[in-house]
């Protein structure tokens, strides 16, 4: 079973995918003509990804591909029509990319299964070998025992017989001796000796004759062969035929979109013919810094299930868990499966309302991850609000957003509902709270972290106050590189889009203000308009009159304005390179700076004497603002 063959071969089309075949085949043909897909395989595979057809990535050069090819589609003659085919190529390419990733995942899983099956069989082989080895060992042990026993017996019998033999020999010798003695006595010429010796000798012969001669064998000639007890060998042999303990199951990798914030759906399978009574699933969280000694390791939880799947609940969001499973039957418990790592889905992000900005063509959304640990990416979803303020289905998703912010291209003069999801291997989180974005005019909040310490900002974030009280010196200590230290000013968080932006500032006759724009990198210890990185309209109050300056690089044209504006309109046009100021109430043009603004600029607001001003934005620019 060569994995590379699997990879190179064609996977079967699953019935449910067949309906997509016709639609996609055309695109596939197109794709083949225009851009070869990475492998020559069919683009269908077992694990389908629930992606939205209108996928697109960060706003970029690619145009949005249309979800389905138009009905009057391919005249092959015009296959090389630029826009359409490009869009289709992009769709197909994205789909292919997704499916290639899925296939690789699948191939990896197959590899694991292959290895596990190999292992399982290996173990079964081993098990068998061992079993039989055990049996053989036992048998040979028995044999040795029996042989030794027989040997012993033989020795014993031989010894006994030998003893007997010796005894017989001795007896014979004794008899012989006696007889010889008797004969000697009998033959003795000496009658007196004879008479002396004859009676004891006759006695001895009588005694000897009375002696029973033991003529029976001391031992039997038969060997004792007890029945050998082979029952244990029998059980061992029997047990070979008995159902073995199961082999290790194979735990599946995590299926996309199967997890929730607090639960995981785990699946596994058994790649052998084992009978299984139940499974036990073990799991424990994987901690960031696992100490070397296992004494502090998190506790392992266990669930007993009969099916080959289980939903584990009460888990932490955006957390990685290690899971393994064992199978048990009457014989015993299988070895544990490989450990699989699963992740729960993250918690939903939290959109930071005050850090979102918009303009007629786009919106910049910023959010907090909502998770302590990193997630893989974010998905931004938006839907356009209908005129009757009903919510339409999600019209667009932007996936694979790597950071906690996203610039979205939008249509002018509409209202959108935007939400964000955090995504990790486990799948997407729930939707964050929705934020409403209106593409009428330009909307921004003030960057409070840039505000001079004497400046306080109203709760709604649009009015600034320069109070008359002396600030304690300790407050100055809070200043950092980002706050204005001399000019009592604050910057606005304008969306970095090089289009047209318009906002208004409400002041009163007595307010000495500086209103305009500044580069993001303007020196914070400088005054607005006094450097080359800011442009502003300045109102100065002298004892006798009102003076207006339009400052840049410390210089201003010499102007007289007869009616003091109390509502100043500011119009920034990046493309034309203009920054214009208007008296909104009179629709009167006051002055225009011409500069090509190489860097992004931000609205700036400063007060030169105690007073207040209010920023109004999200207003559609009046016609005269961008003539």
């Amino acid at each position: 079973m060569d994995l590379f063959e699997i990879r190179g071969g064609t996977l079967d089309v699953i019935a449910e995918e067949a309906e997509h075949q016709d639609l996609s085949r055309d695109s596939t043909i197109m794709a083949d003509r225009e851009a070869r897909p990475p492998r020559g395989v069919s683009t269908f595979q077992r694990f389908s990804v629930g992606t939205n057809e209108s996928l697109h990535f960060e706003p970029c050069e690619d145009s949005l591909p249309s979800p389905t090819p138009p009905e009057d589609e391919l005249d092959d003659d015009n296959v090389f029509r630029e826009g359409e085919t490009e869009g289709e190529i992009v769709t197909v390419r994205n789909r292919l990319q997704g499916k290639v990733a899925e296939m690789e995942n699948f191939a990896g899983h197959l590899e694991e299964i292959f290895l596990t099956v190999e292992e399982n069989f290996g173990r079964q082989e081993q098990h068998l070998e061992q079993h039989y080895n055990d049996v053989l060992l036992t048998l040979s042990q028995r044999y040795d025992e029996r042989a030794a026993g027989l040997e012993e017996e033989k020795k014993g019998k031989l010894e006994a017989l030998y003893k007997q033999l010796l005894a017989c020999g001795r007896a014979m010798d004794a008899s012989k001796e006696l007889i010889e003695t008797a004969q000697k006595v009998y033959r003795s010429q000496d009658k007196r000796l004879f008479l002396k010796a004859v009676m004891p000798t006759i006695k001895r012969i009588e005694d000897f004759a009375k002696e029973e001669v033991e003529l029976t064998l001391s031992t039997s000639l038969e060997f004792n062969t007890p029945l050998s007890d082979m029952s244990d060998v029998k059980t061992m042999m029997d047990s070979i035929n008995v159902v073995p303990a199961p082999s290790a199951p194979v735990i599946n990798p995590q299926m996309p979109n199967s997890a929730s914030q607090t639960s995981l759906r785990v699946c596994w399978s058994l790649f052998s013919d084992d009978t299984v009574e139940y499974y036990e699933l073990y799991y424990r969280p994987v901690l960031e810094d696992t100490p070397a000694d296992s004494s502090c390791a998190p506790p392992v939880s266990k669930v007993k299930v009969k099916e080959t799947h289980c939903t584990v609940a009460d888990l932490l969001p955006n957390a990685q868990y290690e899971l393994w499973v064992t199978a048990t039957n009457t014989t015993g418990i299988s070895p544990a499966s490989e450990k699989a790592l699963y992740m729960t889905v993250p918690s939903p992000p939290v959109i930071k309302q005050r850090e979102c900005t918009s303009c007629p063509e786009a919106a910049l959304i910023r959010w907090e991850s909502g998770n302590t640990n990193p997630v893989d990416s974010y998905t931004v979803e938006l839907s356009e609000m209908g005129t009757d303020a009903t919510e339409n289905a999600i019209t667009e998703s932007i996936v694979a957003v790597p950071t906690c912010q996203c610039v979205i291209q939008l249509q002018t003069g509409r209202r959108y509902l935007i939400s964000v999801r955090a995504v990790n291997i486990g799948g997407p989180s729930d939707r964050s709270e929705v934020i409403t974005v209106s593409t009428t005019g330009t909307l921004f909040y003030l960057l409070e972290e840039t505000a001079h310490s004497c400046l306080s900002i109203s709760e709604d974030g649009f009015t600034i106050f320069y109070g008359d009280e002396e600030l304690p010196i300790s407050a100055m200590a809070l200043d950092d590189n980002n706050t204005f230290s001399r000019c009592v000013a604050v910057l606005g968080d304008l969306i970095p889009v090089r289009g047209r932006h318009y906002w208004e500032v409400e002041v009163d006759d007595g307010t000495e203000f500086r209103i305009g724009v500044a580069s993001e990198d303007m020196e914070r210890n400088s005054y607005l308009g006094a450097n080359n990185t800011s442009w502003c309209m300045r109102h100065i109050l002298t004892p006798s009159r009102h003076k207006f300056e339009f400052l840049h690089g410390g210089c201003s044209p010499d102007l007289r304005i007869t009616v003091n504006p109390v509502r100043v309109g500011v119009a920034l046009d990046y493309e034309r390179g203009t920054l214009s100021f208007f008296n909104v109430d009179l629709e009167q043009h006051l002055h225009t700076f011409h500069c090509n603004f190489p860097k992004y600029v931000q609205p700036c607001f400063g007060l030169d004497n105690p007073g207040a001003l209010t920023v109004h934005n999200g207003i559609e620019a009046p016609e005269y603002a961008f003539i």
Partner: protein
Amino acid sequence: MSLTQVSSNKCAGGFQKVFEHESTELRCKMKFAVYLPPKAETGRCPVLYWLSGLTCTEQNFITKAGSQVLAAEHGIIIVAPDTSPRGCNIEGEDESWDFGTGAGFYVDATEDPWKKNYRMYSYITEELPKLINSNFPSDPDRMSVSGHSMGGHGALICALKNPGKYKTVSAFAPICNPVQSPWGQKAFSGYLGSDRDTWQAYDATVLAASYSGPPLDVLIDQGRDDQFLSANQLLPDNLIAVCSEKKIPVVFRLQPGYDHSYFFIYSFMSDHIKHHAKFLNA
């Protein structure tokens, strides 16, 4: 009222023409220049009346001011009349360059021998518009006025004396307070007599103080190095003070390095035409 075309040159996609006619107010033949933008071929266009300054004719503006490209872009007809009646043979009319020929001061003279011909105010405000509206594709409801120096004075007084007639007004180095300036005093005493009260009817600063009418939006450019400014002929401060008090919206720009010439006018003409376009094309 018949018109005779004197010249026609294609310019910036439109036509710069000069016409002559017999003026009823001025009782003499008068020339005026008309620029017709490309848009005039297909529809009615608003009209900007340009009043030139001392010693000018209808030629100076159309050859030196660089107005045609912007006029074409915004679709505005520009009418530039002469600065006084010509060939009337009035005694003393050619004695000075700042009184008589080429120095009509846009008043209706009441003194002899000027009162018969020197009726530039009525010519500009009555006869000329009627003539233009009957002979050219102009929109009679949309007109505005501008000028330089003496013409600036003329533009300001026409606008202030005719609330609502002109959609807007602008000026280059205008004589803001003729009653206080040597030029004005010379001209007014000649044309209007010694009763200074009669002069006030033609003084922008005075008129501003009593202006009541639709809101104006005035743009004034003044060269800082203008010799006549330093000679106290122009007196813009007086006008600004009055307008500040009376809340008449004025944006007055002092342009460093610029003098009284057409080079100065040329440099800021586009700003003025854009200013007029805002109101004429609204």
